[in-house]
């Protein structure tokens, strides 16, 4: 973790980003740039964000524009991804659902981050009883499978976009708490933190100035992976009819509708699922790429590979 921050410092002192000969270290973005898979995932994610933002302008048809005379049409020039049982354009609905899916994923992960990271840092830094209590709470939450807990939360509240965000956010909170705690524990014993403490630096300053910057690597990686799982979880909830409610389009909801038309309209089940798959895969690959760059152990390997 310490190495990451040192490199960060070097990169800012040396805007050209060239490796300093003494350490042989390279700027993080240079390593990322040398990683085609990661670059590609960034490109795909950019496209997804553009589609989400420009949805009203690029969708060829209205989201709920029904035309029963053109129901269950296979993919054609007029309807690239076919039409559903009500004659709605599948592609337009997939495009419109992109924004909703991203919003929910981002909002729930931000929630989990804002709650989980402070809890984890506190537990890791303070230790003792606070740590024991907080971590037992985290253990309890981990005893429930993710989707099951989300389902239970939706069962309590009424299904809808806000509930979906809360459910996924709550379920992901302990993951962030655990990652933040583990990193904090490893940084807390570093000499520079010990020295700072003996010098009488107040606790909050140590947390802000020394701990936080040094644990960002694992947390950034976790954020990217969590976004992937948040999209999956939202899709699963919507598929079960407990996430986004019709008539609002959602990838999972479209797949649920498609189930009744498996033998007549393969396009209804193939395309929405492909949208989920691509979005999830992109966040997962990005997370993996970031880990290669931000995790000191992986990073050394990546640098070695670069030199070869």
């Amino acid at each position, binding site marked *: 973790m310490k190495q990451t921050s040192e490199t960060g410092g070097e990169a800012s002192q040396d805007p050209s980003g060239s490796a300093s000969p003494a350490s042989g270290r390279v700027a993080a973005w240079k390593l990322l740039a040398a990683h085609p898979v990661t670059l590609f995932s960034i490109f795909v994610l950019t496209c997804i964000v553009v589609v989400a933002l420009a949805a009203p302008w690029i969708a060829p048809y209205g989201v709920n524009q029904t035309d029963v005379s053109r129901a269950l049409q296979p993919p054609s020039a007029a309807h690239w991804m076919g039409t559903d049982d009500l004659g709605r354009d599948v592609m337009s609905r997939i495009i419109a659902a992109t924004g909703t899916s991203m919003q929910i994923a981002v909002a729930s992960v931000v929630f989990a981050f804002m709650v989980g990271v402070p809890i984890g840092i506190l537990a890791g830094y303070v230790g003792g009883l606070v740590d024991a209590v907080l971590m037992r709470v985290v253990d309890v939450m981990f*005893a429930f499978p993710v989707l099951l807990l989300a389902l239970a939360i939706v069962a*309590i509240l009424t299904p809808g976009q806000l509930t979906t965000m809360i459910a996924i956010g709550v379920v992901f909170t302990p993951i962030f708490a655990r990652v933040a705690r583990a990193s904090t524990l490893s940084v807390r014993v570093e000499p520079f933190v010990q020295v700072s403490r003996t010098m009488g630096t107040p606790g909050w300053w140590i947390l802000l100035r020394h701990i936080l910057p040094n644990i960002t690597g694992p947390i950034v990686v976790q954020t990217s992976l969590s976004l992937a799982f948040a999209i*999956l979880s939202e899709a699963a909830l919507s598929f079960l009819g407990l996430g986004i409610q019709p008539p609002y389009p959602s990838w*999972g909801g479209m797949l649920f509708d498609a189930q009744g038309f*498996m*033998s007549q309209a393969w396009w209804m*089940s193939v395309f929405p699922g492909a949208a989920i798959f691509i979005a999830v895969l992109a966040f997962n690959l990005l997370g993996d790429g970031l880990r290669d760059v931000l995790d000191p152990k992986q990073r050394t390997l990546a640098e070695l590979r670069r030199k070869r």
Partner: protein
Amino acid sequence: MRMSPRAVTRFLGMRLIHSAVVLFGVMVVTFALIQLVPGDPVRLALGTRYTQESYDALMAASGLDRPMGEQFFAYIGSAATGDLGVSFRSGQPVTVLLFERLPATLSLAGAGLLIGLLIAVPAGLWAALREGRLADGVVRITSQFGVSIPDFWMGMLLILVFSTGLGWLPSSGYIPISESPGGWLRQVTLPAITVGTVAGAILTRYVRAATLEVANMGYVRTAKSKGLAPSVVTLRHIARNALVPVLTVAGIQLATILSGVIVVEVVFAWPGLGRLVFDSVASRDYPMIQGAVLLIAVMFLLINFIVDVLYAVVDPRIRLA
């Protein structure tokens, strides 16, 4: 390296206490579930079937009219004796309904885990032994695909190809193993492949990582420099040691599979716990949801406990920590 029996007992004791604390927390959460429902859960569950008599009867049966503290102790007490209340929907004991569904879920989860391991162990070993080469890259990317694919979509694709397309396998239904092993196998194949692919993808990464760690150990280098055949080194020195940590992950995966089966069971109309939870959420059958959540969480704790113990038995270093 053998540990004294006392250390083993101590370790088991600590693990037991930890599990008990977490179990208590789990029960607090499942108890809170029904308390947190805004409004009156019984009224909500009855919906359009509401009459004063049915309301009073259900209220009394569920004990929700009593003070919360009393309810909590009653809940803990009766749960300990296996009484999880009565289903709002059917009026039958929750425990009975849960155990009716359990075999279907366990047989699907077991078959899924088996497929997952059959994919993960060879793929992970193969990738790790060819680290940084093409095979490794292919396995890593493929496992990313497996992790990213929504399981319910995968199930639908399998149905599209093998049921509605080729007509080889049924798209839904369940036959208990006890009734007809062959029939069960036909029914379980598609859902188990669905569950196993995702589990296999995750496990592959752990097998690969564990193998890499072991392959760089001194004793492996020693074995190689002694001139042992590569196959002997791979099987006896690397695979055997690498698969120990995989045991833990496989245990955790079994729990993840239990969660994943909810959607897969819905896709394949598999009458297991997941399907039960789904139906119960739809009909606001809170005692049923409460019971199913508790049962799955307890199974998760139990699996983890067993895995921890096995792990400590297999690897003495764990007990020292």
